[in-house]
């Protein structure tokens, strides 16, 4: 399966060769002698364009598929059918063309800007939201040798850029001149800043063990097997498991997905910071949210799930980029699964959860990882690291998050 493995890179090389050949042919036809620097510059430009187009195309298609599959999976979990009508002329194709219909609807809707809105900021907010979301995926290694931009501190770049989302959300909320928008935006800020911390802390744990901030280096560090049967992915270590869960929960919160969808909780705030948006701007917000979700899931795959690597050597016949996108699809599915399962947090529960459980646990994971690393990754290290993450978890679980602290001893005066 070497052919499939090399398919993306080979396609890129083919296009570059084609461009070079066509340019050379035209120049020879017209009898022009190009300066020596033109051709390499042109090829670099074309190469950049290919990567941009490929990334945007892949993520747009994934966004479209996700929007329909999310609804279908959610429906199945609630014993419904979900969208199954929109097809191509008379072929229904299980409703696979739903995103096309949604897109046409969104594009043809009127774009309403409230009279009292700050028009410039209102216009800029979706752009500020979508730009980082589309830049984020460039640092991820999609396959062997398939990193759009090889950054030695890619993880840092990811978090630095990802923090721009908060600004966009607050711009949207503030400029709408609507109390629900501002409340939603303030909740979003509170939530994102609270969860940024455990998110970054759990990434720091991985950086500590892998000894690098480059995504590709982290993936390489997860190759091979430990104890002869366990893939060396970081999720299969005690500290890595905890950090992975923390990162996953943080990712849910960062991408405003249920159960952390308080900023746009439709039962309390109309639609949070999206209240005053309509038409294409609304669609852009959603696109940014979904692409951001894919990006952060891709980072989770890179950090904890071994990136593009197959779990065992005999599974190497499946191309590496298939492994990456397969893991990504699995994570996206679990996000829908979580959404179907859990109710929304209350705002105080959400803050408590971040500061009282996730932050201490991320510190525990850090200490555990250090112990695991310096005791030589053996059985002793395993035992110690399990102890170091397990004991705080049980203490926090039994003493800080028991029912005593919730209002369940409510007395009903009349109904009983």
């Amino acid at each position, binding site marked *: 399966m070497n052919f499939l493995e090399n398919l993306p890179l080979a396609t890129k090389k083919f296009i570059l060769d084609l461009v070079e050949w066509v340019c050379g042919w035209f120049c020879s036809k017209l009898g022009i002698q190009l300066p020596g620097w033109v051709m390499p510059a042109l090829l670099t430009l074309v190469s950049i364009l290919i990567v941009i187009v490929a990334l945007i195309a892949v993520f747009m298609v994934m966004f479209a598929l996700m929007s329909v599959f999310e609804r279908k*999976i959610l429906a*199945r*979990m*609630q*014993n*419904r*059918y979900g969208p199954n009508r929109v097809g191509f002329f008379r072929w229904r194709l299980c409703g696979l063309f739903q995103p096309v219909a949604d897109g046409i609807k969104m594009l043809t809707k009127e774009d309403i800007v409230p009279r009292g809105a700050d028009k410039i900021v209102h216009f800029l907010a979706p752009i500020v939201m979508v730009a980082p979301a589309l830049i984020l995926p460039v640092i991820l290694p999609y396959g062997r040798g398939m990193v759009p931009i090889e950054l030695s501190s890619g993880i840092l770049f990811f978090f630095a850029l990802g923090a721009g989302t908060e600004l966009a959300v607050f711009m949207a909320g503030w400029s709408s001149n609507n109390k629900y928008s501002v409340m939603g935006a303030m909740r979003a800020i509170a939530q994102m800043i609270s969860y940024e911390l455990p998110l970054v802390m759990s990434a720091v744990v991985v950086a500590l063990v892998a000894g690098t901030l480059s995504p590709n280096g982290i993936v390489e560090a997860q190759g091979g097997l430990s104890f002869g049967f366990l893939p060396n992915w970081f999720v299969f270590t005690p500290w890595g498991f905890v950090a992975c869960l923390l990162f996953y929960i943080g990712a849910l919160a960062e991408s405003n997905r249920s159960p952390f969808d308080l900023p746009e909780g439709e039962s309390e705030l109309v639609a949070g910071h999206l209240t005053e948006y309509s038409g294409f701007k609304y669609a852009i917000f959603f696109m940014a949210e979904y692409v951001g979700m894919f990006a952060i899931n891709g980072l989770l795959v890179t950090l904890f799930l071994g990136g593009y690597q197959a779990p065992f050597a005999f599974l190497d016949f499946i191309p590496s980029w298939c492994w990456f996108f397969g893991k990504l699809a699995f994570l996206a599915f679990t996000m829908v*699964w*979580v959404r*179907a*399962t*859990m109710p929304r947090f209350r705002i105080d529960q959400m803050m408590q959860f971040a500061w009282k459980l996730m932050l201490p646990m991320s510190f525990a994971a850090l200490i555990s990882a250090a112990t695991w690393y310096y005791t030589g990754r053996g059985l002793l290290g395993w035992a110690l690291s399990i102890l170091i993450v397990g004991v705080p*978890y*049980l203490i*926090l*679980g*039994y003493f800080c*998050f028991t029912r005593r602290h919730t209002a369940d001893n409510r007395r009903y005066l009349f109904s009983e």
Partner: protein
Amino acid sequence: MMNFPGSGILKGMVVTARNMIGSYFDRAHAKRLITEQYPEERPTLPEASRSFPFLVFDGQDPEAGMRCVACKICEKECPPQCIFIEQDRDANGKLLRRPKIFDIDISVCMGCQICVESCPFESIRMDNIYEMSSCDRFGSLVIHKGQLLKSNEYYRSINPTEAAETDARIEAARIKKAAAAKVAAEKVAAARAAAAAKAAAEQAAQPPSEPEQPAP
């Protein structure tokens, strides 16, 4: 299952996963996927379901078998006044016992069934059709006599129980009427016979004699 912090979340996840897998594989289970895929799957309506009234006719010919006699009781009883009836006349202008026009405006009709309950001739009944949308707000929402007339067989097919009751009632009324007619006929015959007998007796008592001719 063990109880540890966070185990409730896992239990919940198991429940949703089981529902998802179950929705694909135990399709026979009546509790899953109860959604009816409407244009392909039609609901089997219960007998008592009703939408708008229709007129019942007996036999094959709608005009000849029409039960309605244009008594206009339903028109008067109808709370939203959606029925309009005009009685038919023959060539001489004499009123006939059948409607010339019978219109129901279903944009006004509220399906209360009062017309059905007030009809003394078992003529108007509730239909259960529900696909009555039209592109026109006025014309096609007024249903005329030709569309309203539906056979008794159709009524039996949508609501067998009530149709049987109605048929039995009509049959009983017919038998009663026939019996009454027979009694009346017998009475008439008896009276006629008695009259004949009396006349005969009188004739017998008075022997026929030549009427006396008055002398000129």
